[in-house]
């Protein structure tokens, strides 16, 4: 059974035609299911858990990258006992949705066909504080202090792009780099790279961007996790 979760912003008038298009396509493909609309809903977690109890096997996030992350974090919790739970994605992002794009889900028409094709892949997740992310975390602030593996601290003295990449799902890696995340610091002078097991962003109130989708504030502890999630992906998956 499919459950479609529409993020609150999709209630805006400008999305009306788009939603009609999606629902018509889903009907044509015989992929109708139950719907949850965020906005009036106070407790998303309870609502999803309730649907899962009633037999839902595929939860589809209809929204943007933050919608995907929010629903993914709820499903991960339940996936420990219910291994069949799968996440699907229909992106309504006005800008390019990094997560959907990386998974080969480029536009709305493709998204519905991809749900029908049901190509399922399992992804290992990295953890940031109490939540999880799929691909990367970015910080673009100067004087950021990072503690690595509780052994040493790094400070970038210049304005730099700091990227923490989850390499957990990359296949062709040497043994020394498996089960580690990778920190890259790029500035005008060059690039630095560090594999690590655990990283702490020490600075408070520093914006941290997750999967190019939404921001949280520091401090943040980032590390590989034991958790996995099943996601329906497109043929042209990039990561």
């Amino acid at each position: 059974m499919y459950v479609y979760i529409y993020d609150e912003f999709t209630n805006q008038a400008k999305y009306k035609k788009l939603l009609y298009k999606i629902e018509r396509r889903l009907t044509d493909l015989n992929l109708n299911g139950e719907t949850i609309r965020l906005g009036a809903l106070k407790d998303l977690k309870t609502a999803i858990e309730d649907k899962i109890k009633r037999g839902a096997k595929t939860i589809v996030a209809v929204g943007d990258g933050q919608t995907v992350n929010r629903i993914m974090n709820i499903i991960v919790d339940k996936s420990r006992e219910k291994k069949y739970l799968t996440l699907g994605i229909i992106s309504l992002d006005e800008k390019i949705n990094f997560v959907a794009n990386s998974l080969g889900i480029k536009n709305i028409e493709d998204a519905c066909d991809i749900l029908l094709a049901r190509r399922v892949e399992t992804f290992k997740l990295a953890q940031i504080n109490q939540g999880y992310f799929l691909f990367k975390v970015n910080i673009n602030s100067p004087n950021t202090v990072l503690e690595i593996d509780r052994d040493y601290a790094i400070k970038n003295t210049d304005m730099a792009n700091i990227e923490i990449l989850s390499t957990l799902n990359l296949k062709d890696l040497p043994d020394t780099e498996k089960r580690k995340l990778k920190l890259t610091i790029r500035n005008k002078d060059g690039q630095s790279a560090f594999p690590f097991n655990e990283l702490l962003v020490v600075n408070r109130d520093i914006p941290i961007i997750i999967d190019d989708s939404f921001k949280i504030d520091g401090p943040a502890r980032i590390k590989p996790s034991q958790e996995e999630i099943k996601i329906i992906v497109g043929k042209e998956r990039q990561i």
Partner: protein
Amino acid sequence: MFEKKESLKGAETIIGPSVMIKGNFNCKGNVIVDGVLKGNVKTYGDILIGNKAKVSADIEAKTARIGGEIKGNIKVENGLQIVSSARVFGDIECTSLSVEEGAIINGKCTMTKGAKEPKIEIEEEIKKEEKKEEKTNKK
């Protein structure tokens, strides 16, 4: 290991310019340091200290190429290259050493493995010399 240009194949860790590191830095692969490092560095691989790097640390590696400033001891299992731009203030321990003209080293150098200290028994040497002289004089 080290090519003519300042580079290191397959470096797992790169500490670029404008990056400062403080603490105990341990890793398994090859390391390039072009920034500032304070503490200790230990790797099972090779280490390249770039010309503009400033390191206040003891360094332990399989092989090393030093181009910048080091305040600390260097212990290398195999070869150590110290190039002309290097300034080393500390002791060195390695099995093979190459130093370019212009490099500055202030410290003790110990060559390990294969370098036996020659036994000089002075009295025996003097006796041998005296016998040689006698033979020459008799002739």
